[in-house]
C-alpha cells in the first residue's frame, strides 16, 4: 500500500511564526502536492513538485513556500503565519507522466493560527 505521512495531525501556532509542515511518501513517486481544504471550497492546490528541487505554483501560492531536497519528502513552509492560513493541509503524491494518474493523500494536518 502507498503510504503518505504528515508530521503532525494538529498544530497550533501564533501569528507571525514560521511553520513547517512535513510530508513523506514511500512509493518513489515523482510528483508531490500540497493542498489546503476549506469547507465549501474543496481542495485548492498550493504548490506541487515533479522532481527533486523542482517546484511549480498552484492556484494559491501566496504566503507559502516549499522545499523538496529528497524525492520522498516535500515540505510546506509558512514564512509568517496569519490567521487566514488556518485550514486543513493535505499532502499527496502520484506517479509522473504515463503513470496511473491518481494521487495518494496523507491524513492531513489541521493548522490553527491564533
Amino acid at each position, binding site marked *: 500500500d502507498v503510504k*503518505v505521512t504528515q508530521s503532525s495531525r494538529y498544530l497550533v501556532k501564533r501569528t507571525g511564526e514560521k511553520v513547517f509542515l512535513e510530508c513523506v511518501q514511500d512509493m518513489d513517486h515523482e*510528483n508531490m502536492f500540497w*493542498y489546503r481544504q476549506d469547507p*465549501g*471550497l*474543496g*481542495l*485548492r*492546490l498550493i504548490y*506541487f513538485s*515533479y522532481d527533486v528541487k523542482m517546484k*511549480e505554483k*498552484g492556484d494559491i501560492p501566496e504566503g507559502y513556500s516549499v522545499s523538496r531536497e529528497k524525492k520522498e519528502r516535500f515540505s510546506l513552509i509558512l514564512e509568517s503565519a496569519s490567521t487566514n492560513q488556518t485550514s486543513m493541509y*493535505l499532502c*499527496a503524491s*502520484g*506517479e*509522473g*507522466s504515463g*503513470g496511473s*494518474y*491518481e*494521487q*495518494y*493523500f*496523507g*491524513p*492531513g494536518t489541521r493548522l490553527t493560527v491564533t
Partner: protein
Amino acid sequence: AQSVAQPEDQVNVAEGNPLTVKCTYSVSGNPYLFWYVQYPNRGLQFLLKYITGDNLVKGSYGFEAEFNKSQTSFHLKKPSALVSDSALYFCAVDSAPNNAGNMLTFGGGTRLMVKP
C-alpha cells in the same frame, strides 16, 4: 482553465436506496476524471477514475460512475446505500494529454448522509 462543479452541498438518502452524487466539469482537451472520498478526520481515498474506454467505471466499495461527454458530467452512483457510505465526496478533473504532472482540480465536495 479547468473546473469542476458539485451542485449539491449535501445529499440525503435512506439506507438501501440508490444514491447519486452529481459532478460536472469543464476542460479543454480530453478529461481525466476522478472520485475521492473523505471519512471524518481522514485524508482522501481514491474511489475510481475515468481515463478512456468504457463510459461506465466501477470502483471501490460498490461505487460506479458514468462519463457523459455530451453533458460533461461524471456522476457517482451506488445501487444500494449503506450507513457507512456517509462521508464527504470529491470529484476531480485533469486534462490530457498535455499534462506532465497530473494536476487535479477539485470540486467543492458533497456530503453524503445515509440514514438507517
